[in-house]
């Protein structure tokens, strides 16, 4: 699949400013940090959730627990793929029961990843609340899923792809809109 870059959505500096703002929003709309925990969805939700936690610690001096969730086993499309995707680990070292969880991912698109994430979380216990935080909401929902905390909303077409590059994973830091070419 060949892609061509159409435009840059966020630069490195803009990603940082966006995350700073979102971190404050999370604490503001949660009435503080009590009972709060972040769950990063593999892969890119993980460094995002860790950065948010560090920012929150920076201004509130509270260490919010952060977990990582691999949703591979909860995907709804496994029986359509010829080779099973590699499973990675879920590491949530704190009890989920009664927690105020914020699930963190890079891009919200159809909502199927988040549906799978919720299935995964509910296998671990009964959270008090689950809200969603994403860096980019690109529309085209196929399920009734919404984000409470959004970095940026971007209008996209079906052929376009939002590419998020983060230094922890990609050695680069930017968000681009790319289009498929045939």
């Amino acid at each position, binding site marked *: 699949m060949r892609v061509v870059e159409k435009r840059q959505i966020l630069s490195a500096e803009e990603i940082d400013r966006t995350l700073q703002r979102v971190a404050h929003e999370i604490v503001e709309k949660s009435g503080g940090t009590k009972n709060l925990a972040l769950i990063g969805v593999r*892969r890119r939700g993980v460094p995002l959730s860790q950065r948010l936690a560090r920012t929150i610690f920076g201004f509130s001096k509270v260490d919010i627990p952060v977990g990582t969730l691999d949703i591979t086993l909860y995907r709804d499309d496994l029986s359509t793929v010829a*080779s099973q995707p590699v499973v990675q*680990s879920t590491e949530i070292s704190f009890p989920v029961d009664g927690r105020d969880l914020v699930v963190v991912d890079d891009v919200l698109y159809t909502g199927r990843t988040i549906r799978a994430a919720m299935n995964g979380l509910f296998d671990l216990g009964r959270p008090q609340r689950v809200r969603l935080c994403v860096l980019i909401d690109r529309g085209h929902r196929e399920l009734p899923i919404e984000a409470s905390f959004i970095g940026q909303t971007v209008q996209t077409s079906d052929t376009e792809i939002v590419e998020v590059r983060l230094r922890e994973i990609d050695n680069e830091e930017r968000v681009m809109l790319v289009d498929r070419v045939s």
Partner: protein
Amino acid sequence: MLQHFEDLLGIETLTREQITFILDQSKPFQEFQRHPLKKLATLRGKTVALAFFEPSTRTRISFATAAARLGADTMNLQAESSSLKKGESLLDTVRTLEAMRPDGIVIRHSSSGAADFVAERLETPVLNAGDGTHEHPTQGLLDALTIRDRLGKLDGLSVTILGDILHSRVARSNIHLLSKFGARITLCGPAMWIPRQLESLAPNVRRVTRVEEALKDADVIIVLRVQTERIHEPALAAEEYILGYQLTRERLRLARKGAPVLHPGPMIRGLEIDPDVADGPQSCVLEQVTNGLAVRMALLYHLVGGAPADAPHPAKERSNAAD
């Protein structure tokens, strides 16, 4: 790196990379065993046939639980109630099973090569749960996972295997696997159970008659059960075995400090292993059982899951899918 498997018939034909892949894929399933709700929908709608032509409790329950936790259904064939007693051939039995369209067949059989025989003739993925004295690959894998977790590595270890190696498919799978990681393997037991041909199974395999010499500086010790049901010649007297080969606390001290002690089970306490060693801190028997579940879940996930081999490959459409 993704690996593609169609069957799992033995360790001998696997590469180091494939083995490492399976062990790495077992880790998330190890973690899964600690979840309060141990039920996935990953293999929902899939059926796994458990074709056990030889009696088994632990392996059968382990595979059945692995399948159930992944959300799959199982078909249960057990030797005691098998139509084999009425004279049906192995091939007819598995073809009958295949006609019910399982998505995977787990087979245990008393003939070496039975799993390969079945895999060559059926489209369905086949998992070898033990064939004669040939291989028991899932045991080899779970043993490797246990060793790797305990010692932090699998490379270049001194491994001592103690007991009736002649009749042990577990030992053969262990030998194939560990030698692919550069192990020096020492086989020890009564001479009639350690024939010379075993040295040619893999590089760096030696036979030793005295247990003290075999255990000296060992990094890992694998103790095998004395298999009285397999022996047709007069069995070695239990007292002689204990005197010559039992893994006692004193003998264990000859090995490296903290060397893990593995046993595929079931153990005969007081025969091949001193009860204090079996219950001591170096004993890995319970971890082996838990790891067995994780390994079998990982294997069923990769072999039984997914589209059937002849399904059209779906167009790669969405790419903001979680990666």
